[in-house]
């Protein structure tokens, strides 16, 4: 008996040695992933860029008021368009005709005379806000639907899978194109209501066509987790379905959810810009895509007007994507290249 006890102790020691970073420390696997993320230079740099852009967006009202610039036409403190615009609609100060001025680093918008930096900051705020809200909602819907379909199975699963296929086959752009004029005509007499309705409609469109990927992913994961013995053990324990979904399954899905979230934020930023550029996104509040849309017409004479928002979108999306890739590598080392 003593020899077998010794053997077991030896086996345990060996097993402990095989995991030097984990042995006996009680460190949760997610903490290890975060540690891995912090030591990845790409993650750190792209994370810093994202942080700066997010802060700029969040603090847009503060920054603009400190700078003394305004993002809306007809702001009481803002100079009247006739004071800052030439007869051809281009600004009388700053680019494209006059030299750089610190008062308006990115110049003024033609025809409206609104400060471009202010528009950019508020646009950043809108784009990030829309992307974050859309991501939160798609994650809730996708995870919820995937969990239930995968765990309940049977007919529920078949119906849900069919609905997922249905939504995937419906042309996203067509839905957005059809919705935009309806919203515009419904709120044509109420500009404030229109701005809000456009944001809501945009988020709704993004969510409606954005939840399926995650739902499908989670469903697949749950289907395989469901057969794992610890889930069966929870059933035998008599734990409630709610408990099994939220306490047994969900913690094992953190990695795919984090990865999906980190990749969907840049996708939504790009989608918002694209839709607004096409004129079916936001018109009532500043947004990056909408600025790009307006700047295209005067690109020949006033390239900076276009480049500023285009580069901002590119940097934002690139940084978010790099960060997302780093997160995926940290949480799921098996897919590491």
């Amino acid at each position: 008996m003593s020899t077998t006890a010794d053997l077991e102790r030896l086996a345990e020691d060996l097993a402990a040695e095989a995991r030097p970073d984990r042995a006996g420390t009680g460190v949760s696997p997610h903490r290890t992933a975060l540690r891995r993320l912090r030591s990845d230079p790409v993650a750190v740099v792209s994370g810093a860029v994202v942080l700066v852009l997010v802060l700029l967006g969040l603090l847009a009202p503060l920054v603009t008021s400190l700078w003394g610039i305004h993002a809306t036409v007809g702001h009481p403190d803002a100079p009247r368009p006739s004071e800052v615009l030439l007869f051809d609609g281009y600004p009388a100060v700053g680019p494209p005709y006059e030299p750089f001025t610190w008062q308006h680093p990115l110049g003024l918008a033609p025809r409206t005379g609104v400060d471009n930096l202010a528009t950019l900051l508020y646009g950043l705020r809108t784009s990030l806000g829309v992307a974050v809200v859309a991501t939160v909602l798609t994650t809730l819907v996708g995870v919820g639907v995937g969990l239930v379909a995968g765990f309940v199975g049977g007919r529920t699963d078949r119906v849900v899978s069919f609905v997922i296929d249905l939504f995937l086959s419906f042309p996203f752009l067509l839905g957005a194109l059809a919705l935009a004029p309806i919203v515009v005509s419904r709120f044509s007499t109420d500009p404030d209501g229109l701005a809000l309705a456009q944001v809501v409609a945009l988020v709704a469109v993004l969510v409606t066509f954005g939840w399926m990927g995650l739902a499908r992913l989670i469903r697949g994961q749950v289907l395989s987790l469901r057969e794992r013995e610890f889930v069966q053990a929870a059933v035998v324990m008599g734990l409630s379905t709610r408990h099994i979904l939220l306490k047994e399954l969900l913690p094992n899905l953190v990695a795919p959810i984090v990865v999906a979230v980190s990749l969907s934020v840049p996708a939504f930023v790009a989608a918002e810009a694209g839709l607004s550029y096409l004129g079916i996104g936001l018109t009532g509040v500043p947004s990056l895509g909408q600025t790009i849309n307006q700047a295209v017409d005067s690109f020949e004479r006033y390239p900076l007007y276009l480049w500023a928002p285009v580069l901002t979108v590119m940097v934002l999306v690139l940084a978010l994507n790099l960060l997302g890739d780093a997160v995926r590598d940290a949480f799921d080392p098996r897919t590491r290249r």
Partner: protein
Amino acid sequence: MTHDPAPPDPLLAVRDLRKLFPARPTARRSRFQGAVRAVDGISFDLRPGGTLGIVGESGSGKTTTGRLVARLEQPTSGSIRFAGTEIGALSRKEMRPLRRQIQMVFQDPYGSLNPRQTVGTALATPLRAHALVPAGGVGRRVREVLELVGLDPRHVDRYPADLSGGQRQRVAVARALAVEPRLVVADEPVSALDVSVQAQVVNLLQDLRRELGVAFLLISHDLAVVRHFCDDVAVMYLGRIVETADRDSLYTRPLHPYTQALMSAVPDVRRGTSGERLHRIRLPGEPPSPVSPPSGCRFRTRCWRAQEVCAQVDPPLLEITPTHRVACHFAGEFGAVPADREGAPGQPG
């Protein structure tokens, strides 16, 4: 197990239990293609505090039997009475209040613990869910249970990845017993462990069973483990019980050719028997598919004693002694069978 005239009320009484799985689970809409007859009409009893071992080759339906009893699987037909309640047809919801009384220990200690939960959480969750101890006493009870299974109470903060296989299986045992069940279904509880650790876990189960008076349904392909642990044994082949007896009777005098073959493959067990059957019986081929089992006796395709009658008549499970029953047309020829039973097998039913 037995057919005593007045047996004590069994804790578990299984009658004519069947579980058919669709043979082609992918083809949803195609017409019925046949079924895997994983468990095909089995009956057995288990008294309170008793131990029944189920042995048999891979694919004989042992795991399915255990999962049916634990109601992880819905029976196709037949009855499962647990403590006087028919649980075979209960819905998920109806089953929940009874769940605590039937627990399960799984084969794979790496899969049966949630990798994202500490040992303490894994043990406290069922205690809280069933309100077995006042909220303030959960922590103390968790440490108690850990000590009961021979683990250091400081392990509460560990994750499964920090534990060895043997330690994990002890946690799994602790979790099953923490809710004070009346029956534990243990499906190959030690076969995934190192040989050196197996004996310890079996001994632990043995001690706990004596101490707590829990009934065990022990599923194993390891005849030595079953012999060590179980009072009664049922031998399964292709979804059927072909022989069932008390331990001593089965191991010293196996009557079914299949049981004899199983025993002959285990050196330990062979040595323990009376000495005549020392030679190894090799069964030809693989077990037939459970989708279309052979006519008559299911074992006949691999049986060295098979005769014509075996292909035509399915032998019923007949009583040889009050504690020993076997489903073979020729069992009587090898055992001390009462004369009046000799004609019974072979009658076309």
